[in-house]
């Protein structure tokens, strides 16, 4: 393997005895560092998304708070009106009917607003299933829709999302990793769109695999960059925006972890489409245990 190169650099005499052990230790360390990087990258994406999520939550909360305040004041007025008309033995005044109608209207809005907060928080929760490390059968469309909902907080107003879903069986995968892979591709697609544009997510069944494509109408990938986009540590984004790990991790998740394939088609000024193919069933891998 690649690690053979390292042997040549060590002193052969020392190396012979401790070779196996030190190589194992080295491999473990590399693996650990790698996991740390993956986790750091995930947290960085979540952090960037959280600003958008807070904004998204503030509007419905503002609405609920305002409505509750209005309802509270109105109820006081209503109480006085009812007490007055009752003490005078009169029927309910017209103003009271108007207030009652308004209150009913506001209650409806409050319900809608609450449902929206719940949906955002729910998608955040699904995404943050960091420790869901077991192979599980999942509805891929649900995974994609959750990721779209979450990332949509950042670009909803300028990017239109179209989904073209075929009938798919549940596929066996690591759900947490899958979320991460799709999030990377969707966020990249959104970032490649300068002003307004479209992201089209399509799925289709192809034999014993599913194929997912994520197409954007963004700026496309320049020829000189195309060969390096899956390389870890390579980024074209400004400092603080990209970790240079997104696509390399996505490739690892798709190809190394799930035995799938990832590739892309791109045209400058027209956009990019990423294709992901994942087997429906994961092979039983004993040596991986």
């Amino acid at each position, binding site marked *: 393997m690649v690690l053979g190169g390292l042997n040549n650099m060590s002193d052969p005499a020392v190396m012979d005895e401790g070779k196996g052990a030190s190589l194992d230790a080295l491999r473990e360390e590399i693996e650990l560092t790698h996991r740390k990087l993956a986790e750091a990258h995930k947290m960085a994406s979540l952090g960037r998304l959280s600003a958008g999520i807070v904004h998204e939550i503030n509007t419905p909360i503002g609405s609920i*708070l305002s409505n509750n305040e*209005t309802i509270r004041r109105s109820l006081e007025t209503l109480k006085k009106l009812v007490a007055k008309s009752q003490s005078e033995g009169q029927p309910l005044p017209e103003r009271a009917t108007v207030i009652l109608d*308004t209150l009913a209207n506001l209650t409806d809005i409050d319900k809608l607003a609450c449902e929206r907060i719940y949906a955002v928080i729910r998608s955040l929760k699904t995404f943050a299933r960091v420790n869901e490390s077991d192979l599980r059968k999942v509805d891929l469309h649900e995974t994609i829709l959750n990721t779209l909902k979450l990332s949509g907080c950042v670009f909803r107003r300028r990017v239109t999302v179209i989904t073209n879903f075929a009938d798919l069986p549940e596929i066996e995968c690591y759900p947490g990793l899958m979320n991460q892979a799709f999030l990377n591709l969707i966020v990249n697609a959104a970032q490649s769109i300068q002003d307004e544009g479209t992201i089209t997510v399509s799925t289709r069944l192809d034999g014993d695999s599913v194929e997912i494509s994520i197409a954007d109408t963004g700026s496309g990938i320049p020829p000189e960059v195309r060969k390096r986009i899956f390389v870890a540590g390579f980024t074209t984004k400004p400092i603080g925006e990209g970790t240079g790990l997104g696509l390399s991790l996505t490739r690892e998740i798709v190809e190394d972890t799930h035995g799938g394939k990832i590739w892309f088609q791109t045209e400058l000024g027209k956009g990019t489409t990423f294709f992901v193919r994942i087997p429906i069933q994961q092979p039983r891998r004993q040596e991986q245990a």
Partner: protein
Amino acid sequence: MDQNGKGHGQPVVVIVDDEEMVITSVRAFLSLETEYDIHGFTDPEEAVRFLETSPADVIVSDYLMPKMNGIQLLGKAKQLQPEAARVLLTGHADKQSAIQAINEVGLFQYLEKPWDNSQLLLVIQSAIERTQLFRSLREKITELDAAHGSLKDVQSRLLRAFL
């Protein structure tokens, strides 16, 4: 869409937010507490068309909206009706960019979501007061100009009569 309010010479409040729920909440609150003539728009371009033909006392706008952001909308409002007070009601995440743009459009007040109803009412009340003060100031200046003009006329006639 524009859902017309009360009319009859009441102060005109324009609310622009791409979220229908914000308009409904603010409208419900204002119509129970005040007699204002309230016009709500989810489409900023429609709000601009409204402002082209109808005078407003205060325009309350969201910042992040499709087609046109709040600063662009309030900029157009400033061109169309310089006296109408402009208020930005925005979510937290776009605060930085909003603050940078405030000077461009001469904002009367900047409010954050989630907003406080009593504060919003206070801001709208003082915005209307300010707009109406500006309007009466302009009327007084026009009257002064007219008076000045007629005085000059009298003066020149006097001069002509005596010289």
